C-alpha cells in the first residue's frame, strides 16, 4: 500500500490490544480503538480507569506491555520521533519547567521540536494572546495559578501545529471564560482538519463538545462511537453512570435537612 495514501486515510489514532500491567494490577486491559481523522474525541471514565495510562502509551510516554499504537499510520513505538512530530500532548499530573517564564516555556517547546526562531517567536506571541496570557508572559510559571498553568501547558502542545492533539483533563481548574476560549480554539482546529482527543470527567462538556466518545472503566473499553450512538436515548451522563455503576444506594444524610 502507498504509505502517503495510507497516512491520509488512516485513523488519526489507532490502538490495537494496548495493555499495561503494574504488578498484579492490570491498568489497561488490551484496548483497541480507532479515533477517526477530523473527529473531536472524548475519553471518559471514572478516576483510576486507565485513561491517563492509555493516553501515555498512545503518545510515547509509557512503553506498553502489549499491543500497538499508530498516529496517522505511523507506529508510535517503531517510528517514535515521527509519530511525536504529529502529536501535541497536554499530559496530566506532570510538572512543567516552572522556573521559566511563560514565554520562555512556550519558546522552549518550539525550539525543542527544531522549529526556527522566527516562527517560534511569532506563534508564541499568538498563543499567549489567544490564551489571555500576554500580560503574564514574563512571569515565572511557578507563580501561575492552576488555570494559567494548564493554559501555558496547552500552548506548549500547540506551538508546532500538530495534526493530532491529545489533551488529558484540559479544563481542570480553568476558569469559564478561558475554558470557552480553549473550546473555540479546539473547535476551530477540528473544523480545519485537526483531530482532538480529550479526557474528561465532565460528561455534559463531552456531550456538547465532542463528536465521538469512548467510555473506559477498570482498564476496559466499555463503549466507543459517535456521541449519539453511545448515549442512545438518554444523556451521556446517565449512560455513563449505568455502564460504570457505583452509585451509592440507600439513605442520604437526613440530618442535613434540618436547616
Amino acid at each position, binding site marked *: 500500500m502507498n504509505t502517503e495514501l495510507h497516512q491520509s486515510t488512516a485513523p488519526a489514532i489507532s490502538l490495537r490490544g494496548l495493555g499495561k500491567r503494574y504488578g498484579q494490577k492490570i491498568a489497561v486491559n488490551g484496548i483497541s480503538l480507532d479515533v477517526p481523522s477530523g473527529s473531536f474525541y472524548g475519553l471518559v471514565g471514572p478516576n483510576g480507569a486507565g485513561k491517563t495510562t492509555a493516553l501515555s502509551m498512545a*503518545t*510515547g*510516554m*509509557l*512503553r506498553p506491555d502489549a499491543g500497538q499504537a499508530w498516529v496517522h499510520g505511523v507506529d508510535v513505538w517503531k517510528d*517514535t*520521533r515521527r509519530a*511525536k*512530530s504529529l*502529536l501535541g*500532548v497536554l*499530559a496530566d*499530573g*506532570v*510538572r*512543567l*519547567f*516552572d*522556573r*521559566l*517564564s511563560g*514565554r*520562555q516555556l512556550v*519558546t*522552549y*517547546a518550539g*525550539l*525543542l*521540536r*527544531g522549529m*526556527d*526562531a522566527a516562527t*517560534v517567536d511569532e506563534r508564541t506571541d499568538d498563543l499567549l494572546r489567544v490564551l489571555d496570557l500576554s500580560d503574564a508572559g*514574563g*512571569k*515565572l510559571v*511557578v*507563580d501561575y*495559578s492552576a488555570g494559567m498553568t494548564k493554559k501555558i501547558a496547552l500552548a*506548549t*502542545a500547540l506551538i*508546532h501545529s500538530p495534526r493530532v492533539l491529545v489533551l488529558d483533563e484540559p479544563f481542570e481548574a480553568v476558569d469559564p471564560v478561558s475554558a470557552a476560549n480553549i473550546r473555540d480554539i479546539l473547535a476551530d482546529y477540528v473544523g480545519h482538519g485537526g483531530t482532538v482527543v480529550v479526557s474528561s470527567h465532565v460528561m455534559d462538556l463531552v456531550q456538547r463538545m465532542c463528536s465521538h466518545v469512548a467510555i473506559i472503566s477498570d482498564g476496559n473499553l466499555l463503549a466507543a462511537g459517535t456521541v449519539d450512538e453511545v448515549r442512545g436515548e438518554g444523556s451521556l451522563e446517565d449512560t455513563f453512570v449505568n455502564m460504570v455503576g457505583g452509585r451509592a444506594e440507600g439513605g442520604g444524610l437526613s440530618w442535613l435537612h434540618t436547616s
Partner: protein
Amino acid sequence: MVAHLLKLKLALLRNGFKRSPWQLVGVIIGGIYGLGLAVLLFVGMFALGDQPAELITTVVVLAVSLITLGWAVIPVLLSGVDLTLDPSRFSVYPIPPRQLVIGLLLSGFIGVPGLVMLLLFAGQGLAWRANAGLALVGILCGVLAALNALALSRLAVTAATALTSNRRFRELGMILLFVPLIMLGPILQTATEGLEAGLGWLPDISAVLAWTPLGSFAAVPGDVAVGAWGLAAARLVLSLVYLVVIILAWKSVLFRALETPPQQSGGSRAVSGLGVAFRLFPATPWGAVASRCLTYWMKDPRYAMSIIFVPLVPLLIWFWSSQGGDYTAMLYLAPIIAVLLAFSISADISYDNTAFSLHVLTGLRGFDDRLGRVAASAVFAVPTVLLAAILPAALLGETELLPAILGLSLGALGTGWAVSSIASARYTYAVPLPGDNPMKTPPGTGARMAVTQLATFGSTIVLMLPEIILHIVFLVTGQELYAWLVLVTGVVFGALMLMGGLRIGGRWFDSRTPELMQATVLNR
C-alpha cells in the same frame, strides 16, 4: 481547648508513625541522640555544681542564650520546621484566640526538640544542687526559659512568614544555612583557638545577655545564689515582662497574618523577553536545552546546592594546607573542581522530575539533550576551572607546572562530562523535588546514590589514566616536555571522551526515553 490542641499534636505524631515507619525510626534516632545530649549536659551541669556561683551563672546564661537564639533563627531559615499545627489551618474554627495561642505554644513541647530543650533547661537545677530551694528556683526558671524560647521561636517564624512566603528569600535562606555547616570543621577549630584567647570577656557577654530576653530567666538563680534578692526579683519581673510581651507580639502578628494571609504569588521579577540565557545559545534543540539548563542553574536552588561547595573547596584546601605550611595541594585545586563541576550535571534528569515529559513528548534527540546540558554547565565550569588552574600556580610561582595542571583539569572536565552524560541517561535517583528544600533528601536514596556516584567518580579516574600517568612521569623526571604532553593529552583525550560520552549517552537516552520518563514519575 488547650488540651484538645495538645492531643491533636500527639495524634498527628502517632499517625505519622503509622503512615511511615521511617518517621518513627527518625524520631527514635532523634530521641536517642537528644537523650544522649541531655545526659551529657546533665553530667556537665552536675559537675558545674562544684564551681563558684559566678561561673555557673556565666555558663548557664551563655548556654541558654545560645540555644534560645538557635530556636529563633534556625526555623526562620528553614522556613518553619514544624508545621504539624499550622495556625492557618485553625482559622476556619471558632477557637478563642487566647486558647489557640496557649495551645499552639505548649504543643511545641510535644516532639523531640521541644522535649529535649525542656529537659536541658530544667536541668540547670542540677548545677544549683548545693541548696534544695535554689535548685527548685533553677528548675522553675529553666521551664520558663524553655517556654520563652518557644515563644520567641514562634514569634520569629510568624513574623518572617511574610518574608519567607517569598520564594527567593526562603531558598536563599536554606543555602545561607548550609554554608556554615560545610565550614563547621574549620570554624570550630578557629573558634576554639579564639575562645581560649577570648575566655576573659565571656563573663561580660554573659552579664549583658542576662538582661536580654535570651538569657534573663537563666540568670535569676545566680542572683538568688549570691543573695542579691532585689536583683533576682527585678530580673524575674523583667523576664516575665519579656515573655508576656513576646507572646502578645506573636499573638498580634499571628492574627494579623491569619486575617490577611500573605500573598503566595509574586516574588519573582518579570522576565523581559526571553531573558539572558536564551540569547546566549543558538535557536536549536540543543541550544534550547542549554538555555533552559543555564536558567535553572541561576534560578533553582537545588542546582546551586550541588555546586555550593565549589567555592568552599579552595577554602578547605587552603585551611588544611595552612596547618602544615605546605601549599602544594592548592595547585591541584583545578582538577578537583573540574571533576566536581562535571559531575554536577549527572542528576539533571532527576532534577527535571516529570517536567522531563516535555523532552519526551517533543521527541528530542538524546544527543541534543546531552549536549545542551553539558553546554550550560560549560558556561561557568570552563572559566572557573581555568581560574582555579592559573591563579594558584601564578600566586605560588609554580608556573612551570601550569601546562600539566591545565591538561589534567581540561581532561577531567571532558571525561567527567562524558561519564555524567552516560550515567544520567541510565540512572536516575530521587532528589529533592522542584521547589522543595534543597537539603531534604527523599528517603531510601542514600545507598543507590552513593553507589552511582562512586561508580561515576571511579570511571572518571580510570578513564583519565593517560593524563594521570603522564603527569606522574613529569613529576618524577621533571622534564618540561612531559608537562606539555599532559596538556595535549588532556585536551585531545578530554574532547574525544566528551564526544564519545555524548554519543553513547545520547543512544542510551534514545532507547530508554519512556523508561527515563517513568523513573521521574516514580521519584515524584
